[in-house]
């Protein structure tokens, strides 16, 4: 079916194929709909996100994978006209409930963006910013410790230890992205969301980020949106395939890539479109 890309949009609420649920999930999403004005961007998505594992979200451009990712820490709140419906529970509590403070949510669910976006401040200040606004460090010594540890875990310490006061923007693209990761883990989140973190980087920098993701998986749940199927195959344990706002298939990464159940998934991962 070469023409599946041009096939008419699927009916709403397509039944997702595969294993939606995982034992002891950190996020459980049920019947999530996202609207941008009149546009129905995400249609009745159900998925669980497990602890200490990487979930890769793949799919053609405009399929809603980034939109879904941004639901998880309510970054869509900042977009005028965006509306999220359904239930997204973090550790059993709905993140859209009134009791859930968005600032606290974002401290628990960190985010790394597509384009490295360090603050126009020093490397030290970039990492120290989160702990500082959330009051995680009682004194300068604590803060130094947090900055040091975060930079080490992001694999950046050796490269920047002598120039912590240089501007974060003076680093190379790959270093900037690792600085953004260090900044995110400095507030000790439960989940890290990554929105195509390597799309602006060269292959060597990408490899370093991928190694880093592999290490961070030991401590955090990670959701990564990627355009590269190889990257999804390399770094993730589970993969979710989105198509035009529908979650088509989700399951163990090796199963998705070796034996996809849905026709659309198969067409996409074999490179017939996308």
């Amino acid at each position, binding site marked *: 079916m070469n023409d599946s890309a041009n096939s008419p949009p699927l009916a709403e609420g397509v039944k997702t194929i595969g294993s939606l649920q995982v034992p002891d999930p950190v996020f459980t999403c049920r019947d999530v709909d996202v609207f941008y004005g009149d546009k129905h961007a995400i249609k009745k998505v159900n998925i669980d996100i497990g602890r200490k594992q990487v979930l890769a979200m793949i799919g053609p451009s405009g399929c809603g994978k980034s939109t879904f990712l941004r639901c998880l820490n309510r970054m869509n709140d900042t977009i005028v006209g965006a509306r999220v419906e359904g239930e997204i529970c973090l550790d059993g509590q709905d993140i859209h409930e009134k009791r859930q403070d968005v600032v606290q949510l974002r401290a628990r669910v960190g985010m790394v963006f597509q384009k490295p976006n360090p603050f*126009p401040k020093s490397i030290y200040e970039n990492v120290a910013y989160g702990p500082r606004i959330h009051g995680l460090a009682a004194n300068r010594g604590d803060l130094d410790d947090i900055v040091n540890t975060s930079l080490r875990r992001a694999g950046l310490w050796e490269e920047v230890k002598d120039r912590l006061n240089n501007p974060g923007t003076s680093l190379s693209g790959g270093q900037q992205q690792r600085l953004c990761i260090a900044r995110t883990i400095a507030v000790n989140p439960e989940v890290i969301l990554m929105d195509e973190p390597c799309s602006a980087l060269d292959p060597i920098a990408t490899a370093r980020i991928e190694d880093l993701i592999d290490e961070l998986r030991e401590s955090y749940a990670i959701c990564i949106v990627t355009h590269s199927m190889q990257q999804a195959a390399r770094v993730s344990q589970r993969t979710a395939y989105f198509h035009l706002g529908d979650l088509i298939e989700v399951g163990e990464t090796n199963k998705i890539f070796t034996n996809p159940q849905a026709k659309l998934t198969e067409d996409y991962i074999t490179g017939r479109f996308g």
Partner: protein
Amino acid sequence: MSNTNNVAERSAKETQSLVQASLARRYRAERRFRAYGLAAVLAGIGFVVFLFGTIFSQGLSVFQQSYVKLTIQYDSETIDPSGARNPDDLVTADYQALIRAALRERFPTVEGRPNLRELYALVSSAASIELQRRVVEDPTVIGQRETLWLLADDTVDMLLKDKVSRTAAEDERRLSDQQIGWIDELVREDRLALRFNRAFFSNGDSRDPEQAGVRGALIGSALTLLITLLLSFPIGVGAAVYLEEFAPCNRITDIIEVNINNLAAVPSIVFGLLGLAMFIGVFGLPRSAPLVGGFVLTLLTLPTIIIASRAALKAVPPSIREAALGMGASRLQMVGHHVLPLAMPGMLTGAIIGMARALGESAPLLMIGMVAFIVEVPAGVVDPATALPVQVFLWSDLPERGFVERTSGAIIVLLGFLLVMNATAVVLRNKFEKRW
């Protein structure tokens, strides 16, 4: 095969020649456009040079003023006949008499009331105030002799600066032949010379050109602008931040935005009328006060600052906002820690433009009474004061020759003020400027 090749080659040549033909036309158009641009720039430079040339050629002479060197005998009989050194007596004493005596001493041959009156007219009436000041400050000088440089009359000053004709018919001049003779004699003896004009920088306004100074207007302008800056910058930036970052997008904010843009184009005299009606009429604030002037100019500069600040906020890359929000910063923290520092240079530029406009405004200040003739230098924001552009306006209307150079001199001071103000803002802006 060869046929198609020929056609292809021919059409390629044709294309080339067509491109060639159009190329010449395009370059001609570009050369013409450049010539127009250059002509416009040169014309602009020409006018600026002409403007500054006129102002400086007329105004630079104001920084020097004619002074007469006289030996004053502080005669105790004239100043303080009782010998009690009563401060009130010292203030009211006839110091003019001391100057007259000194002049008679220098020109002993002059006799007769009309001649003496001509002689006395060479020295400014301000000279006696200088003597009074000296005696009140230090009464021990009474009875002693002192050689002083005293302010000469403005007619003498104009003659020394070659601003009036020596050869016109005598009844068309303000100085008689006899007076010119005395002046030349004093100049030969180095007793009459152009010296740095302290009075211009230390005095307020005066009816006598030689006594009139810009200090009152300068302080008045500085106080007015201080009030303006203190009010309009925080309010303007606050309004811009609220409208840009926090306000919901709806009809009301649209109407507010349109109205702010319209306010920026309202003639300044309307703000003056508003200030007169509100601040003076309703709130009963004093007339002619820099406080009210500052309020009125705040209204005038707010739209400019708000518009520039909103543009600066819009120019901050969204990635920085996302980064801050993604870290769990609240909206206010995002703005305060990241957006505002990045927008600050642009906001300062807006403030510079607004303040420069406020400094040059005279119309709204006329409405609130800052156009009054005020001799005293204002000491506070509720004292009566005038402002530099208003002072220029006032002096440009006066008939005495001395005020012509003072008008230009005040313009030079105004330009200097503007330059200092803008330089400060540029330094501040460069300090805040960060790359991202």
